[in-house]
């Protein structure tokens, strides 16, 4: 197990270096100049332009800039945002709890509905329920997020008035963002009703963000179940006279879970990095939206740092998923 872990960590290092190189190269390949964007229509004289570029360190050769960037990373310094002048790591850590909270609830939503739906659809193959689950998951998978989000807002928030339109907390509550996790901060607050308000604000974004993972998990669970249910050991278990519930939950599901866990792991990565549209629709102050805005403003340090941190997290989640295989299925041993 430890050997496997070390081997995996060793593999992370080249991935990590490749990632920094790719992010750096891509953002610098995109045309555009942060200094011109700062000046806008007013324009800027060439002398002032040169001064500003030099102050931002953009006048140095790209290789030197990359070297400085890597040097900074090894010293725990991701640089300062060109726009806000704040350390990139600090900005990321301010926004990341919001993304994590949303991703967590979206995943809970996707797993609690997707897993049972997939199992039942697999077991009751060819029935109306199976067709419905497959049809709905296909629809969920192909749904444009922007349209889906606005539709839910119009129906639940504007027409029925059940849920708030956007944001993380009602404007009535003035609480301190100590942890950045709104539910925890709300619980810590003395103001009555804060927690409920925070929960209400989570409902629609979690549904919208969780829709695609829900569809993927349901479909993957169904097909894994179908495959496992035809295995000899399932037939043997049934022949032994075990209850159908025990056959499905203990003998079939446990084996079917391996590909499902892989998918859940991959989807978690997607959620962390890909919540951009959901964050924009629901005015959710997360890292996805921040990175997109930084790209538009050519805020190089923010883009590089943000993508680096997100990618590192995705790598870690995948590592954790690999570790989980052994827990779910003892036949998979990592100590070879």
């Amino acid at each position, binding site marked *: 197990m430890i050997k496997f872990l070390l081997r995996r960590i060793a593999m992370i290092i080249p991935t990590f270096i490749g990632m920094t190189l790719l992010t750096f190269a891509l953002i610098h390949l995109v*045309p555009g100049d942060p200094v011109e964007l700062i000046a806008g229509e007013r324009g800027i004289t060439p002398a002032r332009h040169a001064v500003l570029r030099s102050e931002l360190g953009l006048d140095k050769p790209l290789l030197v800039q990359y070297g400085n960037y890597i040097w900074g990373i090894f010293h725990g310094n991701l640089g300062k945002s060109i726009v806000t*002048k704040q350390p990139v790591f600090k900005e990321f850590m301010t926004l990341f709890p919001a993304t994590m909270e949303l991703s967590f609830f979206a995943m809970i939503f996707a797993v609690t509905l997707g897993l049972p739906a997939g199992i039942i659809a697999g077991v009751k193959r060819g029935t109306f329920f199976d067709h419905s689950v497959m049809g709905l998951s296909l629809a969920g998978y192909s749904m444009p997020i922007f349209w889906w989000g606005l539709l839910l807002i119009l129906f639940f928030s504007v027409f029925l008035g059940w849920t708030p339109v956007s944001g993380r907390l*009602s404007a*009535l509550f003035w609480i301190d963002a100590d942890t950045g996790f709104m539910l925890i901060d709300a619980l810590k607050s003395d103001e009555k009703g804060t927690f409920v308000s925070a929960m209400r604000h989570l409902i629609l974004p979690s549904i919208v963000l969780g829709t695609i993972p829900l569809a993927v998990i349901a479909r993957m669970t169904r097909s894994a179940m179908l495959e496992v249910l035809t295995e000899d050991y399932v037939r043997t278990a049934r022949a032994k006279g075990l209850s159908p519930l025990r056959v499905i939950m203990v003998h079939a599901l446990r084996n079917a879970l391996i590909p499902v866990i892989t998918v859940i792991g991959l989807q978690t990565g997607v959620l962390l990095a890909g919540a951009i549209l959901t964050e924009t629709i629901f005015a959710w102050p997360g890292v996805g939206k921040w990175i997109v805005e930084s790209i538009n403003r050519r805020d190089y340090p923010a883009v590089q740092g943000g993508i680096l941190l997100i990618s590192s997290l995705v790598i870690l989640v995948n590592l954790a998923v690999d570790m989980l295989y052994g827990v779910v299925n003892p036949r998979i041993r990592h100590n070879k």
Partner: protein
Amino acid sequence: MKRLCIMLLCAFAVIALAGVNVDAKTCVYCSEGSPEGFNPAFYTAGTTFDASSRPMFDRLVLFELGTTKTIPGLAEKWAISPDGKTYTFYLRKGVKFHTTKNFTPTRDFNADDVIFTFERQRDKNHPYHKVSGGNYEYFVSTGMAALIQNIEKKDDYTVVFHLIRPEAPFIATIAMDFASIFSAEYADKMMKAGTPQEVDLNPVGTGPYVLVQYQKDSTIRYEAHKQYWRGPAKIDKLVYSITPDASVRYAKLKAGECHVMPYPNPADLAQMAKEKDIKLMQMEGLNVGYLAFNTEKKPFDNIKVRQALSMAINKQAIIDAVFQGAGKIAKNPIPPTIWSYNDKVKDYPYDPVAAKKLLAEAGFPNGFETDIWAMPVQRPYNPNARRMAEIIQADWDKIGVKAKIVTYEWGEYLKRSKEGEHQTLLLGWTGDNGDPDNFLAVLLGCDAVGSANRARWCYKPFDDLIKQAKTTSDVAERTRLYEKAQVIFKEQAPWVTIAHSVVFKPMRNEVVNFKIDPFGGHVFYGVDIK
């Protein structure tokens, strides 16, 4: 399964129905984006000013809300020397700075605060000059850095600005956001504590609202400044709920989650006007959208070509198709809301036949090939540059001019056009201070070639007039000079002036006394909730 569904629905309903609505004296503004920071001297974006200079600060001179007229602010009055080079400001007494968790002021506003604010931006050796990056973009680009010779404190309530040359727009310029007055006492305290950047992160001003909390990309919370010198604001709590998507802002407005929203989708305006809970205010924007000819390049160095192409464009079709009615044809380079607007100027009529004839006289009977640069972004003065370029392309085609539409990424577009790579280009301008000089000199003066003068048009008779107007403090004389300059501009046609857009502000009916700011800002002092 059924039971699970019922339980989920019940839980959903309980949480949903436990909702609350916005309190009566809290005003929620669904702003379109996050401020870049809270020191207005560093930035140029309206979104940043809305969150910083407008609620939290005052300037020596203010703009009367809803107009471009300057009125006394932290300076009760001022005197200008006969040579126009010395401005003496007599400061208001009894003005209190905000009390925040970082700072409790021990004295009222005085001359030291004015000196600190301006010297920080002007003097490269000032201890605060380099703090927080130290890019004072407006101070530099409005020419203040080169204009102010020195600032003198006569006594605690008298400050004298000595200028290098007379500058008539000076009063309007120091009414701009970048000249917001900071507390020198707070700055000293933070410098001693070793945290000078706090002055910019958690600033202390004299304005109607005190910053309480900023959650990045989410909310900004302010409380009314109880000791505000113009009387406390009627709204106790002001919340900016940052909502980048216009459709979502509209949904929040309808659901009562916010009171005022900026920048509606043009396509939503008709529906908004029908809503019974929403009122739609409108005002002509302080802007101009134009097509600039690169007058340094052939054939646009020929006045007849420029005039012919001006005549060939059907501006009304652009107003209808691009602005969807939310715009007005522009004939002058300054909007009608600015003083000295010359209404006597006659615009070129839309006349393709006359245009073709004029083009033939200029030596191009069969037209020529050119390009039209179209901006890749939506701006207040041009909601859809691509569409506008297509209409112009079709219009010019009728007189034999074949135009290719070119576009670049926004930063690249600004850079290349500044360097004069284009032949014709679409762009525009939103005024900063309501002074005609802010349009005519900034966009069309000889000094601006290579920066904001994208037509690269340097015409001495015009330039002499605007330079003369800049050094004259007599408003009647300035008006006369600017009116004359506008006649020359029309005749020379370095631009086709296309439109002044109309700004719409949707808000809930319970909002009273909201005034649209011609500068595009959102000001909540004076606003009340019924």
